[in-house]
């Protein structure tokens, strides 16, 4: 019971404090989930790959998965409810007072601070995730690192060329499988 409530609370907090949606949530999720030992950074990266290839918002996907992973089906219900509820409540209020909200100086001021901060936080999350992807076993230069770097570079290049994410996930999976079989058998 306490575990369910904890999951709910944790995702409520994540839902309430991430502006911008999508990967803006990643830094907070990474912190919360890793600090409680619910999921490693590596598992989280795996899951982002799954989430990119399945429909629906990232926040719902990750809440469902963490809940399932740590408690079970009931856990995923509580986690999802938690991540959805803050936006639900806030939008109900805002929809009512929309004209005032749009021009409110306090809202504008807060947003002028939050927007750049979210960019900085995501950059910090990228550093953590990059370390876990490339230097999991410490900074060793081996074939595995080169393979990872090659897949990373190719995917970045293709995604800047606006290729579809699902295609890129499939491609990295295929390259990872082929490359690792060649290197490690």
């Amino acid at each position: 019971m306490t575990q369910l409530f904890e999951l709910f609370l944790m995702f409520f907090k994540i839902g309430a404090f991430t502006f911008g949606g999508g990967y803006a949530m990643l830094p907070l999720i990474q912190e919360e989930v890793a600090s409680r030992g619910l999921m490693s950074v590596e598992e989280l990266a795996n899951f982002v790959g799954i989430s990119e290839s399945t429909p629906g918002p990232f926040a719902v996907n990750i809440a469902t998965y963490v809940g399932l992973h740590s408690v079970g089906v009931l856990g995923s219900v509580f986690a999802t409810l938690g991540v959805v509820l803050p936006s639900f409540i806030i939008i109900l209020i805002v929809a009512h007072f929309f004209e005032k909200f749009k021009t409110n100086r306090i809202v504008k001021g807060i947003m002028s601070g939050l927007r750049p901060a979210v960019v900085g936080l995501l950059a910090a999350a990228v550093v953590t995730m990059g370390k876990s992807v490339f230097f999991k076993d410490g900074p060793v230069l081996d074939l595995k690192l080169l393979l990872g770097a090659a897949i990373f570079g190719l995917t970045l290049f293709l995604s800047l060329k606006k290729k579809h994410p699902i295609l890129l996930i499939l491609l990295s999976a295929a390259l990872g499988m082929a490359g690792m079989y060649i290197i490690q058998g």
Partner: protein
Amino acid sequence: MNKKLDLFITFFRIGAFTFGGGYAMVPLIKSEAADKKGWISGEDMLDIIAIAESTPGPIAINSATFVGYKTAGVLGSACATLGVVLPSFLIIALLGALLDKFKDLKPVAYAFFGIRAGVLALIIKALISMFKKCPKPTLKQLKTKEDSFIKYLYKALPYILMALSFCLVALIGVKSLWALLLAAAIGLSSYLAMEGGNGK
């Protein structure tokens, strides 16, 4: 058809067919809720995006709640939100169980090695587009002087906050939540202090 049921079904479809989440959903929401059903106008859609940007939470949830409320009140917003959430919930509940079972198999573990490297690239792509979308002065504007140092600081504030939040979290290990609250406080106080003269 019952309006609430219609809301549920329409948003279920939107939730089931948008991959990647975020703004990928906007065109589909517009074509379904505005063009086809006439629940909201095209202008409402722009409002929704503006609200979604200044309220927490995923844009899919924000817009489902907003459209549902405009169409059928609080119960309508509950139906629409449930509809947009349910597809991903069901799919992940199913896939998650499979993933936990098979992730240690050699080919699966190898594939995920590649996927992690690819995912990192996709997140960096998202970071680049978030950086571009964030309101900030251009480099040229940044080079021109202001009449006072304070004014210049205010102009450069977006860059300062980006760097500050990155350093706090990546180098010092401050929790993201505190960095966000600090940035909100700095943003609010500087906005109120600097934009005080020319406004209501």
